Each structure stands twice: as structure tokens, then as C-alpha cells.
């Protein structure tokens, strides 16, 4: 069974993020880049499925040159090969354009049975790319999986919902997005890191995929950020000093306070 895992490089979740005032896109220079955490679970799941079913695991990444780091990490975890779409024209791409690029890139890979990806990226947090990708590829979409089993051509997932899970079944080839409940991603091993350097990485520009550069990037985006404002800094709390009669009308005063803040 051949699997493609889409991975995205994002700013470290814990680092402070800034938008570039020039074009309202994320200032990627200002933060430590890491692999989107949810995608690590997708890589792990692909490797586990490969251990059972065999086949090849291909890592697919759309991102700038620096995203090579994320590609290497996925390969050092155990992916067999990688496809990296890197092109200045991609800067500022929205979800619609991203799904187009990923779909065209997947079509360059032979006999793909399953596409796995994290159900959201920790920077954009749209959660729409998996569905758009399935639509573009004309494949079954199984999203928010906390468990995946493959039996012949049948893919079954437990789809996480707010109050439990649904069992959803589809037929390969399919697109499956995973949530972090699905597994515990492995660390790359020292040998994995070494061998990752020798694994093949195919790079494409958007034109190589038959895409007009105008369809992607900021100019091709269906949505645009008009303006942005920084969240106001947190105000300090209000200290109420008990001058000896704090217990008097305590409940009343609390209600007054909560009402003034529109909590009740």
C-alpha cells in the first residue's frame, strides 16, 4: 500500500508570532520553524500502516526552501522519499491554492492508495485542506480520524466528534486526516537521521505541476487579509481590599461586578 503524507512547516507553537505589515502574511523569519505537530501524527500513522501492509511512504511538502528541515525530519522518522514543492510564487497561498498544488503533486506519484495529513495546521487552523484535497482528487474523504484500519480496499476510521466518535468507511484511494489522539509519534533515530540524508527528494516549481503561478500565492488567493491589529495586552486584575466588612453584602457585590463585565 503506497501512502503519501502531506506535511507543513509552521512556526513553533510556543513562539511569539508576528504578521508582516507589508502583506499581512506570517513573518516566518521571526520564528523557529517546526513540522506541524498534527502532521507528525500523520507520518507516524503512515509508518505504522506501512509496517503492516508494506508499500512506500512518500512525504509531500509545499513550502519555502527552509521547509527542507521538515521534509528531512519526516524522512528521518522513516519516510522513503519526498516531494517538495518550492516556488516563490506560492507565498501567501490560501487553502484553495494549497489544495490545488498538493493535488497536482500527488498526481505525479504512482499508485497512491492513501493520502494522510494532519487535520489542521497550528498556524492557519482552517481544517479545510483535507476536504478540498479529496474533492480535487475525486477521492473518498475521511476526516478527523482517531483510528485508521485498512482491510483490502476498505478504509475504516473512527471520526472524532465533540461527544464521541463515528465509524466512517471508505474505499481506497482515499484522503484521511488525523487528530492527535491517533498515536504517539516516534522520535527519529540516529540511524534514521543519517539515512534521511541519502533518501531521494524530488523538488517541483508550480509550473512543473502544470499550474499557472497566477492561480496560487497572494495574487491567486480567494481571501485576503485587509488589515490586522495586535491583540491588546492583558489588563492587570483589580484588587479589592477587604476593609473589615468584606462579608457584608458579598454576594450582592459579586453580582454587581459580574454584571458590570456582562458575565451575568
Amino acid at each position, binding site marked *: 500500500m503506497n501512502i503519501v503524507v502531506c506535511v507543513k512547516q509552521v512556526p513553533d507553537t510556543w513562539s511569539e508570532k508576528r504578521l508582516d505589515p507589508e502583506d499581512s502574511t506570517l513573518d516566518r523569519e521571526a520564528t523557529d520553524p517546526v513540522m506541524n505537530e498534527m502532521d507528525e501524527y500523520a507520518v507516524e500513522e503512515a509508518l505504522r500502516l506501512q509496517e503492516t501492509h508494506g508499500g512506500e511512504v512518500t512525504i509531500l511538502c509545499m513550502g519555502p526552501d527552509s521547509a527542507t528541515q521538515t521534509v528531512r525530519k519526516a524522512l528521518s522518522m522513516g519516510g522513503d522519499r519526498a516531494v517538495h514543492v518550492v516556488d516563490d510564487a506560492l507565498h501567501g497561498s490560501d487553502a484553495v491554492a494549497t489544495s490545488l498544488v498538493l493535488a497536482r503533486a500527488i498526481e505525479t506519484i504512482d499508485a497512491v492508495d492513501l493520502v494522510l495529513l494532519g487535520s489542521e495546521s497550528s498556524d492557519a487552523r482552517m481544517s479545510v485542506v483535507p476536504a478540498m484535497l479529496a474533492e480535487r482528487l475525486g477521492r473518498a474523504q475521511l476526516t478527523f480520524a482517531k483510528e485508521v484500519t485498512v482491510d483490502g480496499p476498505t478504509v475504516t476510521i473512527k471520526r472524532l466528534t465533540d461527544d464521541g466518535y463515528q465509524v466512517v468507511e471508505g474505499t481506497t484511494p482515499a484522503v484521511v486526516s488525523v487528530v492527535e489522539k491517533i498515536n504517539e509519534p*516516534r*522520535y*527519529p*533515530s*540516529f*540511524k534514521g*537521521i*543519517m539515512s534521511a540524508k541519502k533518501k531521494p527528494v524530488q523538488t517541483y516549481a508550480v509550473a512543473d505541476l502544470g499550474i499557472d503561478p497566477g492561480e496560487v500565492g497572494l495574487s491567486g488567493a480567494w481571501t485576503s487579509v485587509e488589515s490586522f491589529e495586535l491583540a491588546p495586552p492583558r489588563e492587570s486584575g483589580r484588587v479589592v481590599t477587604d476593609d473589615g466588612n468584606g462579608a457584608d453584602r458579598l454576594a450582592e457585590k459579586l453580582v454587581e461586578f459580574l454584571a458590570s463585565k456582562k458575565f451575568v
Partner: protein
Amino acid sequence: MIARGRRPVERHLPTEEAAALLDLTRELASEELAPRVNAYEAESRFPREVFHTIGRAGLLGLPYDERWGGGGQPYEVYLQVVEELATVWATVAEGVSVHTLACYPLAGFGSDEQRDRWLPDLLGGELLGAYCLSEPQSGSDAAALTTRAVVDGDVYVVDGTKSWITHGGEADFYSLLCRTSDEGSRGIACLLVDATTDGVSAAAPERKMGFTGSTTAQMRFDGARVARDRLLGAEGEGFRIALAALDGGRLGIAACAVGLAQNALDVAVAWAGERRQFGRELREFQGVSFMLADMATGVEAGRALYLDAARRRDRGEAFGKSAAMAKLFCTDMAMKVTTDAVQVLGGYGYVQDFPVERLMREAKALQIVEGTNQVQRMVIGRHLTRP
């Protein structure tokens, strides 16, 4: 306040792969070791699962040949991995050093057939090893050991007691030094004993001053039947194997001591930048900053000394004297630096809510293990006055 915001130590590594290995080590240390260290040490809980994690990542066979699944790394690199682990959790770093020591008799003295058969498992990351040399009545005087192995057909029947065995009762295999004849240091053999062998058992773990997360126990060999093909090297060669293993083991302890001291230094420096007395930060008092300066100098000097010994070993030169000097200097330095870290933190340093009192207790062990520092001086003295 421990690992947070710590700046990585600047290292001169020989290869790009060594740099990648150190990055991996730091990642494992901050994500797998740091969240556990305080609770496990407080509860005297042995972190077996942590050894599985770092073993699978490839950290339990670093200085051995890739042919048998080792990492093919020079000591210069392997020891810096031990140091990085010790910067976060000395129990785990010491465990890596002891495991590596336990693999040495097979890797260094086993036949190719023996190495093909067992070494990939020992280095593969799933198994943990222990090294059985000391006995209740023979510590520094290792050649006086009395555990006996008697041939009976195709097995050795082993009887005796081994003391202070790190990983005793937790290990999967034991590199055992025992007596096959009465010819003193020339009557000792080394056996590779599987932990599941009948007649091998561990006493209750020792209740120690420090390294409480690590397990130390007496091992009993009571008519244990060990196949004769598990003899490493020749009968009578055991003492030579034991000493050669210890030369490498001492470097592991030296690296462990430097990491431990680095941790104490980092905590003390952070504290001196936060704590205010008399209207200024502690670091602005020369009395404190001079202490920090001496601590930092000790750590750097220790690192330089163990790396010099490691590089001698990697070049195939004699390194016994250098290893003894590194063990002596680094562990005495760690004792001083951790004691001073407690002093810098004052009352906070003396209580268990802050990590430095534990580091001070751990440092004490390192002055004793793999040959007390008095034995290191004997070794160094002997090298100096040898005709």
C-alpha cells in the same frame, strides 16, 4: 526553573552527523527526561521506559561498530551525548555509561561468532546491561574477588555475591567477573550472563543518598548455570578485560560529572539573575559572581580534560592515565560546583523544592563509583613512577 531557557553548550564536533546526534539528544532530554526527573528521583522510581525511548533512538550503542548495530561514533562524540543527558538527568546518563561499559567485554574481547550472536541485541536499544565486578569484601581491591565459576560439562556453575550493581534486578544481561582459578588477578574470567538464568537473583535495591531514580542492588549467583560458550576472552583474561572496560567507564563518569555540574551552574546563574537582595540582583555582588566564575571555569576545564582523554582513546593511544585524571578532576569539580550552587541559592538551595541539593547528593556518588578518587590517584601515581 531547570531546563527552561538554558543556552546549549557550545561544542566542537567532528562531523555533521555528530551535530545531528547532539540535536537529537537535546530533544530527547528536554521532552522525555526533563518532565520526569524530579518526580522519579523523589519517588526512587527507575525510568526503564526512558531507556527504551533513548535506546530506540540509538543512544545505547554509540561507540560500537555499525556492523553489529552500534552507532560507529568516536568516544569524543559518545561522551558528549552522555554529558548532555547528565545536564538534565544524571541517572539516565550514568545508566547509558554503565550499559556501554557492560557491552564492552563482548564488543572488545568476544569472538566474531559471539559478537554476531549477541552484540546486535545488546546494542539494539531494547536491552539494558549491568557490570558485575565489586563484591561485599572486594571493592577497590577487585582482584580479591571470590565469586567462583566451576566447569560442569558444557556449563560454568557460578556461586557468589556481587555488590553495588547499577541496574541490578532491572538489567537484561550481566557482564560478570568471576574466579575460575586461585591465581589472584590471573585467575579471573568474564562471562556474559542472561538475566533469566536460573540461580541469578537481585536483593532489595539499596537505599542511597542520591541517584535514587537509578537502581543499585546486590546480585546473587546461586548455582547459576552459564553456558561455557558465554566465556568472553580466555579464562584468566578477566582482570585485563575488567580494567580495560573501566578505563572507558571512567570517561563515562567524567562526562556525567561535567553534565551534572553544568546543570548546577545553569541553575545558580539563573538564580543570581532573578534573586534580589539589598535592592540589586545577586549577580551584581562580586562575592557571588566570583563563585559563578570559578564554577564555570571548573566545568569548562573538566570538559576539556575528558575530551582530551577521549581523543587519545579515539586515536588509539594509551589513555589510562588521562581517563583516571578526567574521572578524578571532573567528579571532584562536580562536588565543588554543586556544593557552591547550593550556597548561591542559600536556604532555597537546601530544600527539596529546588533541584540543587539533589545534584549535590548525586555528585558525591561520582567520587566513589568506577574506582574511588583515591584509586584514581593510585592509578595516576603508578603511571608517573612506572620505570
